[in-house]
């Protein structure tokens, strides 16, 4: 028997959300993702472990962090961390009086997550909402997500799984098969470009989608519209055709590129690969929406 507790690293829990599925929802974001999309707006979600976030602008230069960490120096502009040596132990964040040093991610047991997520039950029930488990990739923490989902479902909570469609274990696939709603990302049709953009092949993803459709799963498709990557008409038309063929897609959400995530790359000390990317014009987004609306499936801009 397993004695180790079933845990995952949670980087945020957003309550009272009107996005990420039907009704009013709580979205729990788990760390860890098998993909490495160039445009990822939650870079803190990629690695499965807690990571140190540095925001020099919030630093008061109190110096408490220096006393607890040998890999950290204090410059006039704030703390500077030697990322090569930092073990993301979190001691500096513990003593930091502001949010200049903070941790992205906290380890949660299933029970702790459940107890927090169940609090808004009355709101879920009244609004037709529920919990969305996202990330990162929810199915990467397969044991955690499966057990959490089951527990929530047994308590009468509607559970949506936000997925990149790349389950890496049988249990991960089982999560998708048993979820009440799937938020399924599509990130381009060209296999080669998909591999370059995300690090994985898209054939497996499409196969998962077809499999879920065949099971009759309720699906919302989410398409990030990334200039120069996923926004050419040929790709979009192919995606529309694929979506139409699935049969159980209830809605298509188009998510136009934004650079809200850029600041998080700085906080993590990672390079932002999308620098200089222009956002799509509203006209172009509308034009794209028309391509998808032609499928007859409700299509909206934003999630």
């Amino acid at each position: 028997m397993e004695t180790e507790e079933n845990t995952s690293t949670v980087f945020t829990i957003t309550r009272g959300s009107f996005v990420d599925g039907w009704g009013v929802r709580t979205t729990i974001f788990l760390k860890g993702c098998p993909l490495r999309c160039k445009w990822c707006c939650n870079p803190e979600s990629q690695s499965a472990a807690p990571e140190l976030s540095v925001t020099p602008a919030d630093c008061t230069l109190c110096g408490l962090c220096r006393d607890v960490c040998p890999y950290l120096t204090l410059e006039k502009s704030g703390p500077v961390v030697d990322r090569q040596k930092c073990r993301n132990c979190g001691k500096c964040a513990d003593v930091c009086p502001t949010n200049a040093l903070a941790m992205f991610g906290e380890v949660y047991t299933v029970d702790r997550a459940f107890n927090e997520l169940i609090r808004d039950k009355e709101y879920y029930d009244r609004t037709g909402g529920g919990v969305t488990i996202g990330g990162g990739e929810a199915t990467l923490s397969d044991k955690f997500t499966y057990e959490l989902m089951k527990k929530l479902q047994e308590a009468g909570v509607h559970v949506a799984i936000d997925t990149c469609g790349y389950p890496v274990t049988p249990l991960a696939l089982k999560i998708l098969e048993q979820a009440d709603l799937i938020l399924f990302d599509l990130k381009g049709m060209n296999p080669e470009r998909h591999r370059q953009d995300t690090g994985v092949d898209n054939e497996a993803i499409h196969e998962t989608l077809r499999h879920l459709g065949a099971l009759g799963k309720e699906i919302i498709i989410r398409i990030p519209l990334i200039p120069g990557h996923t926004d050419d008409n040929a790709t979009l038309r192919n995606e529309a055709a694929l979506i139409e063929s699935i049969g159980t897609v209830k809605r298509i959400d188009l998510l136009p590129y934004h650079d809200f995530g850029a600041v998080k790359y700085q906080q993590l000390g990672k390079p932002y690969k999308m620098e200089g990317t222009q956002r799509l014009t509203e006209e172009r987004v509308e034009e794209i929406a028309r391509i998808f609306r032609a499928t007859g499936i409700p299509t909206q801009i934003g999630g």
Partner: protein
Amino acid sequence: MDSKKTFVMSDRVKQLREAVLATPEVCVERAMYLTRSFMETEGENIVIRRAKALAHILENMTVTIHDGELLVGTTTSKRRGSFIIPEIQWEWYLNEMDNMSTRSWDNCQPIGRFEREQMQKYLPYWKDKCTWDKVNKEWNDTVLRFNGEIFMTHTSSMSGQHFGHIAVDYPRMLSRGLRDIISEAKSDLARIPVSPDELRRHTALKAAVIAMEAVITYAKRYAKLAADMARDEKDPKRKAELLEIARICEKVPEQPAETIYEALQSILLLYFALRIEAYAPGVSLGRPDQYLYPYFERDIANGVIREEQCVELLEMLLIKMNDLACLMSTETVEFLSGFPTLASITIGGVKRDGTDSVNPLTYLLMEAERNIRLTAEEFVVRINRENSDEFVIAACQLAVEMKGKIKFISDETTIAMLMRDGKSLEDARDYVVLGCASPSSAGRSLDITAGAINFAYILELALNDGKSRLTGEQIGLRTGDPKKFASFEELWDALKKQIEYILSVAVCSRNTDRLVYAENVPAPLHSAMLPACFDSGLDIVNVGAKMCATESHGAVGVPNVADSLAAIKKLIFDEKRFTMSELIDALDKNFEGYDALHGALLHAPKFGNDIDYVDDIVGDILEFASSVLDRYEGIAGTKHTLAAMAGTGNFVMGSKVGALPDGRLSGKPLAEGGISPSQGKNTSGATASMRSVAKLNHTAISGGSVFNMRFNPEAVDTDEKMRKFALMLRTYCETGGFHVQFNFLSAETLRAAQADPQQYRDLLVRVATYSAYFVELSKQVQDDIIVKTEFKEV
């Protein structure tokens, strides 16, 4: 009817609206005629004197009908005027006469020569006669020391206002007409009064007749003016309108109203007279969609009026409510800034029989407000399970368009609160909300806010052996050296002792004030318009238990106190990471040199995040304070209740309090609203904040509470999201919440957030799959969002 139907403002409504957007002007007519009358009636019974004074004002004040008006009457002689209430306070008007146009809050136009002369001539008459002068002589040294230190606007005298925090029985007046009520009074007066009660009622009825006749005279002055103007009017259309105004003002409010137009004019004339008689920010129109509906329904069925015409009249009514700007002394205005007129209109909820009260007129009132959206008229939306989603969504949509002006109130919670204070189920169902957020039964109760008490200050006393940290003055009880508190319970006991002491002084202060009011400023017209007063002969200033009257003491800063206690409990007594001694030293030094402790305090659990550890402490404080107030009796059996309301007083009250263990720095503002989480501390999402507030026992704050939430308008930018928002609101109302008001952020507020991120940490950016707080975005991205918000505002 189709709730999506919208109405375009007519040019004349636009012009009338524009005219009341003016900077307020001081009008001396009320003060002048009131004083002249009082000079002539010395020696007579005060109830009669007050009635005669009202009559003298209504017989002599300027009457004007402006171009395009269909509803007539004014509160002052100015387009947007401020009157003077010298029988409450007189001196400050003279002291501040020169700076009223230049002071930092609520400026009016420079006072004209005529006004200055009259003020100098008449106001000194009130020396030692006004309630403020009288009560100051009655109060003991302790009360005097607390005023302006721990108490703000704590009594009606201190805030310079009457007891006009009420919705009178408009339906009774509309259906009977004043003449019929006068006849009843006169037939009762024909009997010989024998018992003390009968003798008292005899005087009250005499005064009531004088006051009601005065309102009729006031209406007939308008009838005459309209008829005179009609004679000279060249435009046949306007001439016909003026003749109609003349006909209506000749008829109402003397006789029963028979059409919606007559009914609106009737209540409006009475409304102005009530304001002139005994004003406070809170003279309310009650539930007009309820009592006006029979007239509306009949008129629509008979083809007497079309919906568009009705909306135009309603728009004119709302504009008229804005003809008064409540002028307050600098001392008071810090607490209630923005010329708060708080002329509330309550819609939604259920009828007295428990069925859905929403009708087509409710929607038309909302449409009128959608166009007018001025500051004086307050819309309170009651939310009941019986109300349709369609109605709640329409109200939410209106709130978004108004950027948050609409107040939402839970019927379930409020009805329970009112029944706790002794109201019957039917009366409780027929509640309205007055002033900031005080629930009251329309026409059947008198629920006044007694003012505000600085609870953060009380905590400071418990943490400083009864002394102010800023002045060192011994204000509270000596409850021991806080550095020696060995357990959380010792601190809690010290706090309870301080609360008991401060509240006993508050009740003393308030009861003294109420005695002075009972003797000096009765309001015979108000009393005639309330069956309980009319039947008993008790004036509203002395009606007490007969009307289940309450006065609520507004607790300010309770979230700060709870956050502070939670931080102490966790860091000092649970985890033992710091000592009481370190904490007190840090507070004395305003955290300078105590970065680690300060950081830990800031990171401790905060109210508004659905954390029971701290939320329960808020509940404990409120329940304890409420139980203390329950021990006391008010004048004439009035109940003392607790409220949680700060007005704008969280700034001035914050300036009196040193550093607090919640991490707040010395002198900084306290939590706003009353029961709103401390600025920027509720970072766990909307439902978490709602649950924190809804889990409180609101019957312990039956005087009402204010919970403000911030939303980015883009959170509700589609119909689907708006529906979710409305259902979320319903859940809050159905699970124990009381009040909530949503502030939909403008670009301006977002700029403020950019400049002062710590105060706005709760602003979520709601984009699918993405999670972040606005203040954590880069400046460039923030600018982008601001530009987008601005674009949508245009």
